[in-house]
Protein backbone atom coordinates (compact mmCIF):
# COMPACT_ATOMS: atom_id res chain seq x y z
CA UNK A 1 0.00 0.00 0.00
CA UNK A 2 1.09 3.55 -0.66
CA UNK A 3 3.36 4.91 2.00
CA UNK A 4 3.74 1.77 4.07
CA UNK A 5 7.47 2.31 4.27
CA UNK A 6 6.85 5.18 6.65
CA UNK A 7 4.94 3.07 9.13
CA UNK A 8 6.77 1.85 12.18
CA UNK A 9 6.38 -1.90 12.43
CA UNK A 10 5.90 -3.32 15.92
CA UNK A 11 6.93 -6.91 16.70
CA UNK A 12 4.35 -9.72 16.82
CA UNK A 13 3.33 -10.68 20.36
CA UNK A 14 0.66 -13.34 19.83
CA UNK A 15 1.05 -16.37 17.63
CA UNK A 16 -1.94 -18.53 16.80
CA UNK A 17 -0.72 -21.88 15.51
CA UNK A 18 -3.61 -23.57 13.72
CA UNK A 19 -2.09 -27.03 13.64
CA UNK A 20 -4.85 -28.69 11.64
CA UNK A 21 -8.33 -28.18 10.22
CA UNK A 22 -9.27 -31.70 11.31
CA UNK A 23 -11.87 -31.69 14.09
CA UNK A 24 -14.24 -34.28 15.53
CA UNK A 25 -16.75 -31.51 16.32
CA UNK A 26 -19.05 -29.82 13.82
CA UNK A 27 -19.96 -26.51 15.44
CA UNK A 28 -21.99 -24.40 13.02
CA UNK A 29 -20.16 -21.19 14.04
CA UNK A 30 -16.63 -22.51 13.48
CA UNK A 31 -14.16 -19.78 12.58
CA UNK A 32 -12.29 -21.96 10.12
CA UNK A 33 -12.85 -21.07 6.45
CA UNK A 34 -16.03 -22.63 5.01
CA UNK A 35 -13.91 -24.11 2.21
CA UNK A 36 -11.33 -25.60 4.61
CA UNK A 37 -11.73 -29.03 2.99
CA UNK A 38 -9.68 -27.88 0.03
CA UNK A 39 -6.66 -27.15 2.21
CA UNK A 40 -5.47 -30.66 2.96
CA UNK A 41 -1.75 -30.06 3.37
CA UNK A 42 -0.35 -29.73 6.89
CA UNK A 43 3.02 -28.44 7.99
CA UNK A 44 5.47 -31.03 9.29
CA UNK A 45 6.81 -31.12 12.84
CA UNK A 46 10.09 -29.59 11.69
CA UNK A 47 8.23 -26.80 9.84
CA UNK A 48 6.30 -25.91 12.99
CA UNK A 49 9.44 -25.92 15.09
CA UNK A 50 11.09 -23.55 12.64
CA UNK A 51 8.04 -21.27 12.65
CA UNK A 52 7.91 -21.22 16.46
CA UNK A 53 11.61 -20.42 16.70
CA UNK A 54 11.47 -17.64 14.11
CA UNK A 55 8.36 -16.02 15.57
CA UNK A 56 9.80 -16.15 19.08
CA UNK A 57 12.94 -14.43 17.85
CA UNK A 58 10.72 -11.68 16.40
CA UNK A 59 9.08 -11.15 19.81
CA UNK A 60 6.03 -13.43 19.86
CA UNK A 61 5.45 -14.75 23.39
CA UNK A 62 1.76 -15.67 23.76
CA UNK A 63 1.14 -18.86 21.84
CA UNK A 64 -2.16 -20.59 21.12
CA UNK A 65 -2.17 -24.13 19.76
CA UNK A 66 -5.43 -24.23 17.90
CA UNK A 67 -7.15 -25.83 14.91
CA UNK A 68 -9.46 -27.61 14.15
CA UNK A 69 -8.69 -29.81 17.12
CA UNK A 70 -4.96 -29.55 17.90
CA UNK A 71 -5.07 -32.87 19.81
CA UNK A 72 -5.39 -34.69 16.49
CA UNK A 73 -1.72 -33.80 15.81
CA UNK A 74 0.51 -36.65 17.01
CA UNK A 75 3.43 -34.25 17.53
CA UNK A 76 1.57 -31.88 19.87
CA UNK A 77 3.65 -32.78 22.95
CA UNK A 78 6.86 -32.32 21.00
CA UNK A 79 5.73 -28.89 19.80
CA UNK A 80 4.66 -27.87 23.31
CA UNK A 81 8.10 -28.86 24.60
CA UNK A 82 9.81 -26.86 21.85
CA UNK A 83 7.61 -23.84 22.64
CA UNK A 84 8.45 -24.03 26.35
CA UNK A 85 12.16 -24.25 25.63
CA UNK A 86 11.83 -21.07 23.56
CA UNK A 87 10.07 -19.21 26.38
CA UNK A 88 6.54 -19.05 25.00
CA UNK A 89 3.52 -18.91 27.29
CA UNK A 90 1.47 -21.58 25.63
CA UNK A 91 -2.21 -22.34 25.56
CA UNK A 92 -3.98 -25.41 24.24
CA UNK A 93 -7.27 -24.34 22.66
CA UNK A 94 -9.27 -27.54 22.60
CA UNK A 95 -12.71 -29.09 22.46
CA UNK A 96 -11.45 -31.58 25.04
CA UNK A 97 -12.34 -34.37 22.65
CA UNK A 98 -9.70 -37.08 22.90
CA UNK A 99 -8.02 -35.53 25.92
CA UNK A 100 -7.13 -38.16 28.54
CA UNK A 101 -5.52 -37.84 31.97
CA UNK A 102 -2.35 -39.36 30.59
CA UNK A 103 -2.15 -36.71 27.86
CA UNK A 104 -2.90 -33.93 30.33
CA UNK A 105 0.06 -35.06 32.45
CA UNK A 106 2.34 -35.48 29.45
CA UNK A 107 1.52 -31.99 28.17
CA UNK A 108 2.13 -30.54 31.61
CA UNK A 109 5.53 -32.20 31.77
CA UNK A 110 6.30 -30.80 28.33
CA UNK A 111 5.62 -27.30 29.65
CA UNK A 112 2.08 -26.40 28.58
CA UNK A 113 0.99 -23.32 30.59
CA UNK A 114 -2.78 -23.42 30.39
CA UNK A 115 -5.75 -25.00 28.67
CA UNK A 116 -8.81 -23.44 27.12
CA UNK A 117 -11.65 -25.91 26.82
CA UNK A 118 -14.88 -25.23 24.99
CA UNK A 119 -18.32 -26.34 26.10
CA UNK A 120 -21.22 -25.63 23.79
CA UNK A 121 -24.10 -25.39 26.27
CA UNK A 122 -25.10 -26.13 29.85
CA UNK A 123 -27.09 -29.25 28.98
CA UNK A 124 -25.99 -32.48 27.36
CA UNK A 125 -28.75 -32.39 24.79
CA UNK A 126 -27.94 -28.94 23.46
CA UNK A 127 -24.16 -29.31 23.77
CA UNK A 128 -24.17 -32.53 21.77
CA UNK A 129 -26.54 -31.06 19.19
CA UNK A 130 -24.42 -27.94 18.60
CA UNK A 131 -21.12 -29.86 18.66
CA UNK A 132 -22.58 -32.43 16.30
CA UNK A 133 -20.85 -35.01 18.52
CA UNK A 134 -21.61 -36.77 21.80
CA UNK A 135 -19.14 -34.94 23.98
CA UNK A 136 -20.78 -33.17 26.94
CA UNK A 137 -19.94 -35.63 29.71
CA UNK A 138 -16.41 -36.14 28.51
CA UNK A 139 -15.82 -32.36 28.34
CA UNK A 140 -16.88 -31.99 31.96
CA UNK A 141 -14.62 -34.86 33.04
CA UNK A 142 -11.75 -33.28 31.13
CA UNK A 143 -12.39 -29.93 32.83
CA UNK A 144 -12.04 -31.64 36.23
CA UNK A 145 -8.79 -33.29 35.14
CA UNK A 146 -7.37 -30.00 33.87
CA UNK A 147 -7.91 -28.48 37.31
CA UNK A 148 -6.74 -31.61 39.10
CA UNK A 149 -3.38 -31.31 37.39
CA UNK A 150 -2.91 -27.69 38.30
CA UNK A 151 -3.47 -25.90 35.02
CA UNK A 152 -5.17 -22.53 34.89
CA UNK A 153 -8.38 -23.28 33.01
CA UNK A 154 -10.21 -21.05 30.59
CA UNK A 155 -13.73 -22.25 29.90
CA UNK A 156 -14.96 -20.96 26.56
CA UNK A 157 -18.63 -20.87 25.67
CA UNK A 158 -19.68 -19.43 22.34
CA UNK A 159 -22.99 -17.64 22.73
CA UNK A 160 -25.74 -17.58 20.08
CA UNK A 161 -29.50 -17.83 19.78
CA UNK A 162 -29.65 -21.55 20.55
CA UNK A 163 -27.94 -21.26 23.94
CA UNK A 164 -28.25 -17.62 25.04
CA UNK A 165 -31.26 -18.46 27.24
CA UNK A 166 -28.97 -20.80 29.22
CA UNK A 167 -26.75 -17.95 30.43
CA UNK A 168 -27.58 -18.44 34.15
CA UNK A 169 -26.93 -22.20 33.90
CA UNK A 170 -23.73 -21.64 31.90
CA UNK A 171 -22.43 -19.37 34.66
CA UNK A 172 -23.33 -21.98 37.31
CA UNK A 173 -21.51 -24.61 35.30
CA UNK A 174 -18.37 -22.44 35.10
CA UNK A 175 -18.45 -21.99 38.85
CA UNK A 176 -18.97 -25.69 39.51
CA UNK A 177 -16.09 -26.59 37.23
CA UNK A 178 -13.86 -24.09 39.05
CA UNK A 179 -12.89 -22.28 35.87
CA UNK A 180 -10.23 -19.62 36.47
CA UNK A 181 -11.36 -17.70 33.43
CA UNK A 182 -14.67 -17.79 31.62
CA UNK A 183 -14.78 -16.59 28.06
CA UNK A 184 -18.31 -15.72 27.02
CA UNK A 185 -17.79 -15.30 23.32
CA UNK A 186 -20.74 -13.84 21.53
CA UNK A 187 -20.55 -15.35 18.06
CA UNK A 188 -18.61 -13.30 15.54
CA UNK A 189 -20.17 -13.74 12.14
CA UNK A 190 -17.41 -15.01 9.88
CA UNK A 191 -16.87 -18.33 8.18
CA UNK A 192 -19.47 -20.89 9.20
CA UNK A 193 -21.18 -18.45 11.54
CA UNK A 194 -21.74 -16.09 8.62
CA UNK A 195 -23.35 -18.93 6.66
CA UNK A 196 -25.61 -19.73 9.64
CA UNK A 197 -26.19 -16.18 10.81
CA UNK A 198 -29.96 -16.17 10.41
CA UNK A 199 -30.14 -19.08 12.82
CA UNK A 200 -27.52 -17.93 15.31
CA UNK A 201 -27.97 -14.19 15.77
CA UNK A 202 -30.02 -13.47 18.90
CA UNK A 203 -32.29 -10.46 19.25
CA UNK A 204 -31.14 -7.30 20.98
CA UNK A 205 -33.44 -8.08 23.92
CA UNK A 206 -31.87 -11.51 24.33
CA UNK A 207 -28.39 -9.99 24.28
CA UNK A 208 -29.25 -7.37 26.84
CA UNK A 209 -30.78 -9.85 29.23
CA UNK A 210 -27.81 -12.22 28.91
CA UNK A 211 -25.33 -9.40 29.33
CA UNK A 212 -27.01 -8.20 32.53
CA UNK A 213 -26.91 -11.72 33.94
CA UNK A 214 -23.23 -12.05 33.04
CA UNK A 215 -22.42 -8.64 34.52
CA UNK A 216 -24.04 -9.47 37.86
CA UNK A 217 -22.13 -12.75 37.93
CA UNK A 218 -18.87 -10.97 37.15
CA UNK A 219 -19.27 -8.87 40.28
CA UNK A 220 -20.22 -11.90 42.35
CA UNK A 221 -17.10 -13.91 41.39
CA UNK A 222 -14.66 -10.98 41.30
CA UNK A 223 -11.29 -12.11 42.64
CA UNK A 224 -12.12 -15.79 42.05
CA UNK A 225 -12.94 -16.00 38.36
CA UNK A 226 -12.16 -13.57 35.59
CA UNK A 227 -14.73 -13.09 32.85
CA UNK A 228 -13.80 -12.25 29.27
CA UNK A 229 -16.89 -11.00 27.54
CA UNK A 230 -16.57 -10.87 23.76
CA UNK A 231 -19.08 -8.24 22.69
CA UNK A 232 -21.71 -8.87 20.04
CA UNK A 233 -20.62 -6.18 17.62
CA UNK A 234 -23.83 -6.23 15.56
CA UNK A 235 -25.46 -4.39 18.44
CA UNK A 236 -22.66 -1.88 18.99
CA UNK A 237 -22.37 1.64 17.52
CA UNK A 238 -18.65 1.39 16.95
CA UNK A 239 -16.59 -1.44 15.53
CA UNK A 240 -14.06 -3.50 17.42
CA UNK A 241 -10.38 -2.56 17.17
CA UNK A 242 -9.86 -5.70 15.18
CA UNK A 243 -6.64 -7.60 15.94
CA UNK A 244 -5.41 -4.52 17.83
CA UNK A 245 -4.61 -3.10 14.39
CA UNK A 246 -3.58 -5.01 11.28
CA UNK A 247 -0.09 -6.47 11.44
CA UNK A 248 0.72 -4.89 14.80
CA UNK A 249 0.35 -7.72 17.30
CA UNK A 250 -1.18 -10.93 15.95
CA UNK A 251 0.18 -13.58 13.64
CA UNK A 252 -1.82 -16.64 12.61
CA UNK A 253 -0.30 -19.59 10.81
CA UNK A 254 -2.88 -21.78 9.06
CA UNK A 255 -2.44 -25.58 8.95
CA UNK A 256 -0.93 -25.48 5.45
CA UNK A 257 1.62 -22.83 6.43
CA UNK A 258 -0.13 -19.73 5.09
CA UNK A 259 0.57 -16.75 7.34
CA UNK A 260 -2.44 -14.55 8.10
CA UNK A 261 -2.79 -11.15 9.80
CA UNK A 262 -6.05 -12.49 11.26
CA UNK A 263 -7.54 -15.96 11.12
CA UNK A 264 -10.23 -14.93 8.59
CA UNK A 265 -7.87 -13.06 6.26
CA UNK A 266 -7.54 -15.88 3.80
CA UNK A 267 -11.03 -15.01 2.56
CA UNK A 268 -9.96 -11.48 1.54
CA UNK A 269 -9.17 -11.02 -2.16
CA UNK A 270 -5.76 -10.04 -3.54
CA UNK A 271 -3.73 -10.22 -0.34
CA UNK A 272 -1.47 -13.04 -1.60
CA UNK A 273 -0.94 -14.27 1.96
CA UNK A 274 2.58 -15.67 2.12
CA UNK A 275 3.53 -19.20 3.15
CA UNK A 276 6.10 -20.19 5.73
CA UNK A 277 7.21 -22.77 3.18
CA UNK A 278 8.64 -19.93 1.10
CA UNK A 279 9.48 -17.13 3.51
CA UNK A 280 10.81 -16.62 7.01
CA UNK A 281 8.56 -15.12 9.69
CA UNK A 282 10.73 -12.01 9.62
CA UNK A 283 10.20 -11.56 5.85
CA UNK A 284 6.49 -12.27 6.24
CA UNK A 285 5.97 -9.86 9.13
CA UNK A 286 8.09 -7.00 7.83
CA UNK A 287 7.99 -7.18 4.05
CA UNK A 288 5.00 -9.15 2.77
CA UNK A 289 2.20 -7.47 0.86
CA UNK A 290 -0.44 -9.10 3.07
CA UNK A 291 0.94 -7.89 6.40
CA UNK A 292 1.48 -4.36 5.11
CA UNK A 293 -1.88 -4.13 3.34
CA UNK A 294 -3.87 -2.41 6.09
CA UNK A 295 -1.06 -1.12 8.28
CA UNK A 296 -1.45 2.54 9.15
CA UNK A 297 -4.27 4.73 7.83
CA UNK A 298 -3.38 5.46 4.18
CA UNK A 299 -5.64 2.71 2.84
CA UNK A 300 -8.78 4.17 4.42
CA UNK A 301 -11.76 5.58 2.58
CA UNK A 302 -14.30 7.96 4.06
CA UNK A 303 -15.81 8.08 6.62
CA UNK A 304 -12.79 6.42 8.30
CA UNK A 305 -10.08 8.55 6.71
CA UNK A 306 -11.15 11.79 8.42
CA UNK A 307 -12.68 10.11 11.49
CA UNK A 308 -11.31 11.20 14.85
CA UNK A 309 -11.73 7.66 16.19
CA UNK A 310 -9.65 5.90 13.53
CA UNK A 311 -6.67 5.48 15.86
CA UNK A 312 -8.92 3.78 18.36
CA UNK A 313 -10.65 1.20 16.16
CA UNK A 314 -8.67 1.26 12.89
CA UNK A 315 -11.93 1.33 10.92
CA UNK A 316 -12.98 -1.98 12.47
CA UNK A 317 -12.70 -5.37 10.88
CA UNK A 318 -11.60 -5.73 7.24
CA UNK A 319 -13.14 -9.19 6.94
CA UNK A 320 -16.50 -7.92 8.17
CA UNK A 321 -16.36 -4.96 5.75
CA UNK A 322 -15.68 -7.39 2.92
CA UNK A 323 -18.30 -9.97 3.93
CA UNK A 324 -21.08 -7.44 4.45
CA UNK A 325 -20.34 -4.70 1.89
CA UNK A 326 -18.23 -6.52 -0.72
CA UNK A 327 -15.43 -3.96 -0.35
CA UNK A 328 -12.68 -4.61 2.20
CA UNK A 329 -11.63 -0.93 2.17
CA UNK A 330 -14.99 0.21 3.52
CA UNK A 331 -15.66 1.11 7.13
CA UNK A 332 -16.79 -1.88 9.16
CA UNK A 333 -20.59 -1.59 8.66
CA UNK A 334 -21.13 -2.18 12.37
CA UNK A 335 -20.14 1.48 12.78
CA UNK A 336 -23.12 3.82 12.80
CA UNK A 337 -21.05 6.25 10.70
CA UNK A 338 -20.73 3.64 7.93
CA UNK A 339 -22.70 4.36 4.76
CA UNK A 340 -23.55 0.65 4.71
CA UNK A 341 -24.74 0.45 8.31
CA UNK A 342 -28.19 -0.64 7.07
CA UNK A 343 -26.81 -4.08 6.09
CA UNK A 344 -26.36 -4.81 9.78
CA UNK A 345 -29.94 -3.77 10.48
CA UNK A 346 -31.10 -5.99 7.61
CA UNK A 347 -29.12 -8.92 9.03
CA UNK A 348 -30.82 -8.43 12.40
CA UNK A 349 -34.27 -8.29 10.77
CA UNK A 350 -33.54 -11.33 8.62
CA UNK A 351 -32.51 -13.33 11.69
CA UNK A 352 -35.71 -12.32 13.45
CA UNK A 353 -37.79 -13.68 10.58
CA UNK A 354 -35.81 -16.94 10.53
CA UNK A 355 -36.52 -17.42 14.22
CA UNK A 356 -40.11 -18.23 13.31
CA UNK A 357 -39.13 -21.02 10.89
CA UNK A 358 -38.82 -24.65 11.94
CA UNK A 359 -35.54 -26.59 11.88
CA UNK A 360 -36.66 -28.49 8.79
CA UNK A 361 -37.53 -25.29 6.93
CA UNK A 362 -34.13 -23.76 7.67
CA UNK A 363 -31.57 -26.22 9.07
CA UNK A 364 -28.17 -25.31 10.54
CA UNK A 365 -25.24 -26.09 8.28
CA UNK A 366 -22.82 -28.06 10.43
CA UNK A 367 -19.09 -27.70 9.96
CA UNK A 368 -17.85 -30.87 8.32
CA UNK A 369 -15.92 -31.86 5.22
CA UNK A 370 -19.00 -32.83 3.23
CA UNK A 371 -20.65 -29.46 3.83
CA UNK A 372 -17.34 -27.70 3.24
CA UNK A 373 -17.02 -29.25 -0.21
CA UNK A 374 -20.60 -28.25 -1.02
CA UNK A 375 -20.08 -24.64 0.11
CA UNK A 376 -17.37 -23.90 -2.46
Amino acid sequence: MAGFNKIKITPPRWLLAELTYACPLQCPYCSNPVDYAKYQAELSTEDWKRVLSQARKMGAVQLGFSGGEPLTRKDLTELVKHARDLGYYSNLITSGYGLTEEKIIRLKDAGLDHIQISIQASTQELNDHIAGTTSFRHKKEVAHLIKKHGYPMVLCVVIHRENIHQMPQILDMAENLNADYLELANTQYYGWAHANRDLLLPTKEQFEEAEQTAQAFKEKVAGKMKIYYVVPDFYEDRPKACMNGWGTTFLTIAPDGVALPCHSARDLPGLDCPSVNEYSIEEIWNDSKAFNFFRGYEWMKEPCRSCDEKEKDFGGCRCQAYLLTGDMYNADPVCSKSLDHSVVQQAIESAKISATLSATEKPLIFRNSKNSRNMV
Partner: protein
Amino acid sequence: MHRLQWEEVQQKDIILYPEGMVELNQSSAEILKLCDGTRSLDQIVSELELKFATTGLKNDITAFLEIALKNGWIQQN
Protein backbone atom coordinates in the same frame (compact mmCIF):
# COMPACT_ATOMS: atom_id res chain seq x y z
CA MET B 1 -0.82 -19.03 36.91
CA HIS B 2 1.29 -15.94 36.17
CA ARG B 3 4.80 -15.99 34.80
CA LEU B 4 7.30 -13.18 35.03
CA GLN B 5 9.97 -13.18 32.34
CA TRP B 6 12.47 -10.98 30.60
CA GLU B 7 11.76 -10.26 26.94
CA GLU B 8 14.89 -9.66 24.93
CA VAL B 9 13.14 -8.08 21.91
CA GLN B 10 11.20 -5.60 24.01
CA GLN B 11 13.97 -5.15 26.59
CA LYS B 12 11.30 -5.45 29.26
CA ASP B 13 10.05 -7.74 31.99
CA ILE B 14 6.53 -8.95 31.34
CA ILE B 15 3.88 -10.89 33.23
CA LEU B 16 2.17 -13.60 31.25
CA TYR B 17 -1.19 -15.13 32.12
CA PRO B 18 -4.07 -16.79 30.27
CA GLU B 19 -5.19 -14.55 27.42
CA GLY B 20 -3.02 -11.63 28.41
CA MET B 21 0.25 -10.01 29.31
CA VAL B 22 1.45 -6.89 31.07
CA GLU B 23 4.65 -5.02 30.36
CA LEU B 24 6.40 -3.88 33.49
CA ASN B 25 8.50 -0.81 34.00
CA GLN B 26 11.79 -1.31 35.78
CA SER B 27 10.62 -0.42 39.27
CA SER B 28 7.57 -2.71 39.12
CA ALA B 29 9.75 -5.57 37.91
CA GLU B 30 12.29 -4.99 40.70
CA ILE B 31 9.54 -5.15 43.31
CA LEU B 32 7.90 -8.28 41.90
CA LYS B 33 11.18 -10.15 41.67
CA LEU B 34 11.55 -9.81 45.43
CA CYS B 35 8.08 -11.24 46.07
CA ASP B 36 9.31 -14.82 46.40
CA GLY B 37 7.47 -15.79 49.57
CA THR B 38 10.50 -15.45 51.84
CA ARG B 39 10.69 -11.67 52.28
CA SER B 40 8.42 -9.44 54.35
CA LEU B 41 7.20 -6.06 53.10
CA ASP B 42 9.74 -4.26 55.27
CA GLN B 43 12.55 -6.40 53.93
CA ILE B 44 11.49 -5.67 50.33
CA VAL B 45 11.41 -1.96 51.07
CA SER B 46 14.80 -1.87 52.72
CA GLU B 47 16.44 -3.99 50.04
CA LEU B 48 15.19 -1.71 47.29
CA GLU B 49 16.07 1.45 49.20
CA LEU B 50 19.56 0.07 49.63
CA LYS B 51 19.83 -1.03 45.99
CA PHE B 52 18.75 2.33 44.60
CA ALA B 53 20.41 4.37 47.37
CA THR B 54 17.22 6.14 48.37
CA THR B 55 14.61 6.29 51.14
CA GLY B 56 10.85 6.72 51.50
CA LEU B 57 9.82 4.01 49.02
CA LYS B 58 7.38 2.25 51.36
CA ASN B 59 4.22 4.02 50.20
CA ASP B 60 4.95 3.51 46.50
CA ILE B 61 5.85 -0.12 47.01
CA THR B 62 2.74 -0.78 49.11
CA ALA B 63 0.52 0.85 46.52
CA PHE B 64 2.03 -1.25 43.74
CA LEU B 65 1.74 -4.47 45.75
CA GLU B 66 -1.94 -3.80 46.28
CA ILE B 67 -2.41 -3.58 42.53
CA ALA B 68 -0.36 -6.75 42.07
CA LEU B 69 -2.45 -8.56 44.66
CA LYS B 70 -5.71 -7.44 43.11
CA ASN B 71 -4.57 -8.66 39.70
CA GLY B 72 -3.45 -11.99 41.09
CA TRP B 73 0.20 -11.44 40.17
CA ILE B 74 1.17 -12.22 43.77
CA GLN B 75 -0.53 -13.99 46.66
CA GLN B 76 -0.64 -13.07 50.31
CA ASN B 77 -0.11 -15.72 52.94
